[in-house]
């Protein structure tokens, strides 16, 4: 019972805190009057902008927004890649060498795309300089890039100019991500998370053996990992490790931290379009999907494997951190896949098939809050498609937020729809065609299919979690997953920005009784159905062959 109450309390706290941060995000990204505490940042930001030669003027074309995004991201990536390939000895107490090129490439792209899929064991391959200068740096800028895109799209849908990418990136960092991470890091520090540059601790275990405990500047790393929906662990065990997630309270707070910025983004959207009812209904929709998934996963984990129930009681304990238990691990798995964080506090590979089904479903939909900033944009795409499909049924060219949905919008929205299957199903099919023993698939049958599909879905959705039984440290995995990472990040971003730019140029129409209202319960329900049909129906065959077949086999 306790996990359910905690989960309910947690979601209630998210609902209560989202409008607070939502108002702040609105102020930051719509240039509203600032609260006193961050007013002093303005000269700093404009100084920085001047230093890189930027005027800060809003882009007047999609390219005007996208080009700075691509250039800056390429630069960030190159810096990180260099640090990984030539790991210097400075701040590298264990003297780790450079990474193999394909692993370095995958790791860089993975953190650059806000995914944080890790094909390496960080505490055994990365020194503190790489962790801070490459990994943590990319965590901040990739989350800021996502937020910038999300708010550029929101601006487009509310009829404003798209904005200036550099300015958005800076403000996302200086006024949202850095202060929030510092606060969260402080809390984690107090809760016992290390924040040190000292070398690993050498201890003698109770059995008298020697053990090295890797330490590092984990608290801040952990904070941005959760808040920025990054998910890459400082240590391989991720949030199941006591240094990353020491107590039940830190576990709950870090679950809250994954949800708060995306929930606040939806709230801010309502403020942008001047229709809080619209954003509240979208929040209800997303929370509904999240709760449905959480109930399935938590119940499945608590029930455990029916074939083992005569021997083991207490649910599915394999791959669980006992401090958190089955229920809260199920909740964490749902939230981490829904929000595209990808942090884990237990092994998803060892979870029940229904939990894996929930996780995959979240990865396919990409809107159960979805990626930092981009999740909101995906939600708008699905709402737009729902308007287009059902809006015709009221007998006029569909309108969304007062703007007509016409060919250009449908083209861009459909393109977003096409990208995910392309970068998930095709590489998965290629990998599976090699057979069970090839490519390090550690399970035969349905679970093997889940492992492979999950890996690419996680990469293309920029999530980062994985069914880690997979031997994914090979050039094949590094390179093929890199393609999915890039395709799943930058193609949708380009399409979303182009879509938003087209929308903002349309005249805003006054609603009439003949206009299909999108801020109603009915339409929210329609959006949910369209979301599931368009977003997940494509993946139904692989879901059926993977987790569904596994679940049915267990049940029979």
């Amino acid at each position: 019972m306790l996990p359910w109450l905690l989960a309910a309390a947690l979601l209630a706290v998210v609902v209560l805190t989202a409008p607070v941060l939502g108002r702040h995000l609105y102020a930051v990204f719509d240039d509203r009057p600032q609260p006193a505490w961050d007013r002093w940042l303005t000269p700093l930001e404009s100084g920085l902008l001047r230093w890189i030669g930027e005027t800060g003027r809003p882009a007047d074309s999609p390219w005007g927004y996208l080009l700075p995004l691509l250039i800056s991201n390429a630069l960030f990536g190159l810096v990180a890649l260099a640090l990984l390939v030539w790991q210097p000895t400075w701040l590298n107490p264990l003297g780790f060498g450079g990474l193999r090129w394909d692993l370095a490439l995958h790791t860089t792209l993975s953190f650059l795309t806000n995914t944080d899929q890790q094909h390496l064991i960080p505490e055994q391959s990365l020194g503190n300089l790489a962790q801070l200068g490459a990994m943590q740096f990319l965590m901040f800028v990739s989350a800021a890039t996502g937020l910038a895109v999300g708010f550029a799209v929101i601006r487009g849908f509310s009829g404003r100019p798209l904005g200036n990418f550099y300015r958005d990136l800076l403000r996302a960092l200086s006024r949202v991500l850095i202060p929030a991470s510092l606060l969260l890091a402080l809390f984690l520090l107090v809760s016992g998370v290390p924040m040190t540059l000292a070398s690993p601790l050498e201890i003698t275990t109770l059995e008298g053996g020697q053990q090295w405990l890797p330490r590092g500047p984990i608290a801040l790393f952990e904070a941005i990992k959760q808040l920025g929906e990054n998910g890459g662990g400082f240590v391989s065990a991720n949030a199941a490790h006591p240094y990353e997630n020491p107590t039940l309270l830190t576990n709950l707070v870090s679950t809250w931290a994954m949800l708060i910025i995306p929930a606040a983004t939806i709230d801010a959207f309502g403020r942008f379009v001047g229709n809080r009812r619209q954003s509240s209904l979208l929040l209800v929709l997303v929370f509904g999907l999240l709760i449905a998934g959480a109930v399935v996963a938590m119940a499945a984990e608590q029930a455990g494997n029916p074939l083992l129930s005569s021997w083991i009681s207490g649910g599915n304990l394999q791959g669980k951190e006992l401090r958190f238990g089955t229920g809260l691990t199920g909740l964490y798995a749902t939230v981490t896949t829904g929000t595209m964080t990808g942090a884990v506090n237990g092994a998803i590979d060892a979870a029940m098939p229904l939990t894996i089904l929930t996780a995959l479903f979240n990865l396919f939909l990409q809107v159960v809050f979805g990626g930092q900033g981009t999740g909101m944009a995906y939600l708008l795409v699905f709402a737009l498609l729902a308007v287009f499909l059902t809006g015709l049924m009221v007998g006029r060219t569909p309108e969304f937020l007062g703007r007509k949905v016409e060919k250009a919008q449908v083209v861009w929205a459909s393109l977003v729809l096409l990208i995910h299957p392309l970068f998930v199903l095709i590489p998965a099919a290629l990998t599976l065609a090699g057979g069970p023993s090839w490519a390090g698939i550690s399970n035969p049958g349905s679970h093997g299919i889940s492992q492979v599909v999950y890996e690419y879905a996680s990469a293309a959705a920029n999530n980062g979690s994985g069914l880690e039984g997979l031997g994914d440290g090979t050039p094949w995995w590094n390179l093929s997953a890199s393609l999915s990472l890039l395709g799943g990040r930058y193609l949708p971003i380009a399409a979303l920005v182009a879509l938003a730019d087209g929308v903002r140029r349309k005249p805003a129409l006054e609603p009439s009784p003949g206009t299909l209202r999108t801020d109603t319960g009915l339409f929210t329900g329609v959006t949910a159905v369209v979301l599931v049909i368009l977003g997940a129906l494509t993946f139904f065959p692989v879901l059926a062959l993977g987790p569904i077949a596994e679940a049915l086999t267990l049940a029979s």
Partner: protein
Amino acid sequence: MPTSTRVLFPRMPRGPRQERRYLERPRQQGLLQRAIVEAFRKLDPRLAVANPVMFVVWCGTVLCLALTIEPRLLDAAAGARERGFNALISLTLLATLLFANFAEALAEGRGKAQADALRRTQARTQARRQLPDGSIELVDSSALRRGDVVLVQGGDVIPADGEVIAGVASVDESAITGESAPVLKEAGSDVAGSVTGGTRILSDQLTLRISADPGKGFIDRMIALVEGAERSKTPNEIALTVLLAVLTQVFLIAVATLSPVAGFLQKPPSVVTLVALLVALIPTTIGGLLSAIGIAGMDRVAQFNVIATSGRAVEACGDVNTLVLDKTGTITLGNRLAEEFLPVGGYSSAELAVVAYGASCFDQTPEGRSIVRLAEKLGAALPFEPASASGIDFSARTRMSGSDSADGIEFRKGAVDAIKGFVRSRGGVVPDQLDQCFEQVSRLGGTPLAVCRGAELYGVIYLKDIIKPGIRERFDQLRRMGIRTVMLTGDNPITAGVIAREAGVDDFIAEATPEDKIAVIQQEQKLGKLVAMTGDGSNDAPALAQANVGVAMNSGTQAAKEAANMVDLDSDPTKLIDIVTIGKQLLITRGALTTFSIANDIAKYFAILPALFAGVGLQALNVMRLASPQSAILSAMVFNALIIPALVPLALKGVKFRPLSAEQLLRRNLLVYGAGGVVAPFIGIKLIDLAIGALRLI
């Protein structure tokens, strides 16, 4: 302005609409046969490739046919016994294609039949062309060019569209309008000054300036339009095609990658079953019916005796936010009738009647004639000898008309302020009582016409406006659909206000000039609204061109017809409201069938997936308890094929439109086509499965 002839139609439609059809109803028998033949002809890959969704089905059919002939073509392990199943799947796929082609051919058929009938009126004729030096030469009608001057005499077929530059004649226009009563054509008249090629002049002689090159005349345009030769996809249709193509692409990826994924479980499905899954998932229902819906929409407009220049115009009708309507002929009956004489300045009603008679004896408008009738009823006689008097026509500048008797006495009637000015200019005095009469009439919603005899003001004629029965209900419906109505009238503001209130329009513009029309349209468009209007006069042409939907009356001028994107052959301005409904119906039908088609996928998954991977442990997903895997796949395919002809009547007739609010419409259509689309295939597939079992097909 009050007695403007601009809105008076020389020929108002008569009789029930069905009997006014200009073309015989195409015979059903011929249509079906023609459509069946066309359905096979459209299997030609060069034609099939135009529809991406159905082209995927086409490719799948070819593949399955090949696998029927040689089952081992792609899989050496396949047994020859699969040939029967492959053949059945190929047949259902072929049927799907043919049904879709049939739907399109059936929709085109009507238009083609109408085009054939129109072509028969287009026999080549000889024309008498007048050369610049005045001499006449006989040329073939196809040799006429724009700007040529020709003479036509009684009995001739008019060789091409043109403007009358001299002469008066009656013309039989039944070939295009179905109206058997001849129409008077004369030079210089705004409305009666244009003739259409293919119509027949009955008597007298006209001199015409040809206004259209051969092949570009009104009838040629009509033929091209009803035949669908110029049919280009409408914006919404293009957007929907894009979405359907992308969905097809997505499902193509999903199915194509399924083979290796299932191969990992050592259970690779056969190619034919994968094709079946693909065809079941891609939106074939809407893909097959999409073009038929568009063509049928154009055809429904044509059945209303309206010729639309493009499907885009019909679709735009559904989006219209504002209707700009002329009061006269649309909201009120075209003819205002004299109801009462209100004398002023001490004159009696009888004296006023005599002067009004005098001012109206040359006025051939229905209003003028009604004044004469009322005067005669009151026992008035003409105060002068008509043969020696001369008539003064109404003009928009003077806003009055009347007659001058042989002894120079000026009888005038017209807008109250115009007559006031006239009386003052002749040195007369305007009695205060006039303004009371003016207000009295205006408050009744009538039009006051002042009457004077030289400098003496006699009084006011009360012209009663009769609001068309049922028009208020129609405006209420429009309001519920979110459409605003704006009434334009030349009446004074008080009269206009009264009529507007009685008719239930949302807004009105009184004392409107043609320029006001454009101003109103531009103002609405600036707010992002789509505006529809009707018009007939030459001075309406700019407004017709400015409006998003301009409907010209067939009785109108050539300029108006060219500027408009629809021409109403019945010249009934009320029809704009019907056309809006058709436009909405077109969009609703498209949306409803798309929703239905996509919602069907859920049931199809539950039929095909467990069958496809029988050995993987997905039996629990076989919620319909279908007999065998092969029967399940075949049932889904048969359902997929049969649903197309089952929906053809709906596609051609259109979803019934109800004037409800968007929310109510959405709720209703979602229930019928969304929920129905989820449930129907579960029932349909199960029934087909039972039938297949009973027939022992597999």
